[in-house]
């Protein structure tokens, strides 16, 4: 069965996708205040040296997110 959605950790390095929505409302509020909104183009830049965290670019700003934080951001397939 084809999956209906993906999350940020599913992105390969240098792959980009538009954000669709956020699963964690408290985090959503924080990310939106930082400038990451539904519709923002997210680029996966790299994985942290010891894993479990991601370096992403969202419309010109650079963000570091924990794995579970990144996994709460749904992106287009």
């Amino acid at each position, binding site marked *: 069965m084809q999956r209906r959605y993906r999350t940020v950790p599913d992105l390969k390095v240098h792959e980009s996708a538009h954000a669709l929505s*956020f699963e964690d*409302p*408290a*985090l*959503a*509020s*924080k*990310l*939106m*205040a*930082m*400038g990451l*909104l*539904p519709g923002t183009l997210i680029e996966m*830049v*790299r*994985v*942290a*040296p*010891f*894993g*479990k*965290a991601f*370096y992403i670019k969202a419309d*010109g*700003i*650079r*963000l*570091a*997110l*924990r794995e579970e*934080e990144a996994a709460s951001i749904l992106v287009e397939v």
Partner: protein
Amino acid sequence: MRDAAGKLLSVALVGNPNSGKSTIFNQLTGLRQKTGNFPGVTVDIKEGRLRFPSGNEALLTDLPGTYSLYPTSSDEKIVAAVLTNPVDAHYPDAIVYIADATHLEKHLLLLTQLLDLGMPVLLALNMSDMAAEVGIKVNATRLSERLGIPVVSVSGRKGENIQKLIAEIEKMLLSLPGQPRKPFYTLTEQEKYVAEAACLNLGIKNLYQGLLIAHHRSWLPFLSGPEEAILDTIVKDKDFVSLRAQVDETLDRYDRFIPIVQEAVHRPPQFPSTPTDRIDEVVTHRWLGPLVFFAVMLLIFQAIYDWSETPMNLIENGFSNLNVWLKERLPEHWTTDLLTDGILAGLSGILVFIPQIAILFFLITLLEEVGYMARVVFMFDKTMRRFGMNGRSVVSLISGGACAVPAIMSSRTIGNWKERLITTMVTPFISCSARLPVYAVLIGLAVPAHRVFGVFTLQSLTFGSMYVLGVLAAFASGYAMKKVLRTRELSYLAIELPVYRMPHWKNLWLTVWEKVSAFVIGAGKIILVISIILWALARFGPGDAMEQAVQQAQTEALARQMNETATNDLVAAYKLEASYAGFLGKMIEPVIRPLGYDWKIGIAIIASFAAREVFVGTMSTIYSIGSSEDDVALRAKMKAATFEDSGAPVYTLATALSLLVFYALAMQCMSTLAVVARETGTWKWAFIQFIYMSLLAYLGAWAVFNLFA
């Protein structure tokens, strides 16, 4: 400039974390600033005087950086708590909003929230020079028209247009309370009901303030229990879901201000790769990243050790020369001793830390200013989180290798209360520079200089193990505290990795100045008091015990035909034995005997509470070689020492190892305790730390003694 009640008018600086707010604050106030604690939490609020060319003055408050009035960390909460409480001491008469002109579309959300609070707001477009460099054109006039507030383009770093900003601030204050504005965001029916009910019940005029209070009712410090209960009822009555409303409001604000930004800002197409990307390719690289980090840390460590040596020696020698000079000139009396051995020794103990604190904070602030620290947090967050800490804790732990005092002060950048507390609690386990002289004497005494594996000596291996032991104790304790401590505060990483920039030197010097004075004034007082108490313990004895000790020593010296120096050393040794400190040493002997120590070591342990390095000096005095402070002579004396009852040698390998473990793990530093109390805002944690570390040290030392005995 004062209000109707005669209070000095105040202006708050508000902005996102990377807006360059503190640079602007420093430009506006210079050295006319002080740091105060916000009651209840240990986040600092900086205040300064703003002087206008007309001679008028106003108070300028630098509120912590935040992205929105819906906060997620304790310092962000302060901004919301201050701005929703018109009777708060920090509540401003007007706001200066600092935005990064290169990312205006990310910085206007908070501004539009502030616009709805009803007080006059001025927008300062910071980093206008950088925006111009990358070809971003901001039409300030258009922006001002659309937002309905004054807009000034400035550059905090270059100091451009600061005078214009000051003039605009004065103009804003002269026309208080300003023109009424139409709210930027229109509340939904439900929000309006909740906000109006909140305003009515709390006697608040502004609708958006009422709405924010309803959102934040569970943690706002100024709400009483009954007020919170009323708000709860109102919110439940209307099925008001706070998080959903927040998200909807935020999205609505973006929808409204993005067209304004598009109209007023012209930006060129993005360049595919910037210098920041190229730097990050190396410094956050899978294995180059950690390598670069450890190289940087090694450099810091080296700098703290190396650069601080000369100024520290200068301070110590300066004080000891002054002491000798005073003792020669002042009459022989206990007041002289109080001045020299108590007060001046205490002052020397405080001031001697200044070089290390200054160097550490200079380098750490430098890394913070250029933008590197956020990368460290990103790389080590996972590892440190396992042990109850956070990416930023790495910096504190490594700094602890030099000195726990500045290291603990550097943990302030950790947002989460629990993670910061654990970092504070475990940092003193890392072997600091003050333990080195103790290690040197004990290892030289007890560990043979055999070579193992051809390269290392057994002594250097023992030295290395002491560091390993400290790191293990720190991480194990962190892990244990993570399981025990509870916090309701959510822990997020989600941080912005700012663009790399050249440091702003004025900011750097101001931070170093601020940290050093905070230490000298805050912790210094306590250190001085403890130092005087310890001096009194060693100087005075019960009844006429001291006089008897002096006579006994002099008789013995006469009988053994000792020269003047040897006589003085013997007198000092007898006096210390007869003093309250000696008394305490003997009193705790039964407790420390299982670790292999006699009362002489007991005295040294008590005295070491002033600072660990005092061990060597105290041992020298006890073994009556006080005047020479010679390691070799001291080791010879210690080797020959025996227990008074059994006659067995005191310093066996087991005792020496047990003492090493004790000194590695025990909390024996009043400066650290004073700093912990200051940073956590209560003596409770300093006390817990003292008990916990001492217990661990005792058990560890006991285990090692019995293993090798």
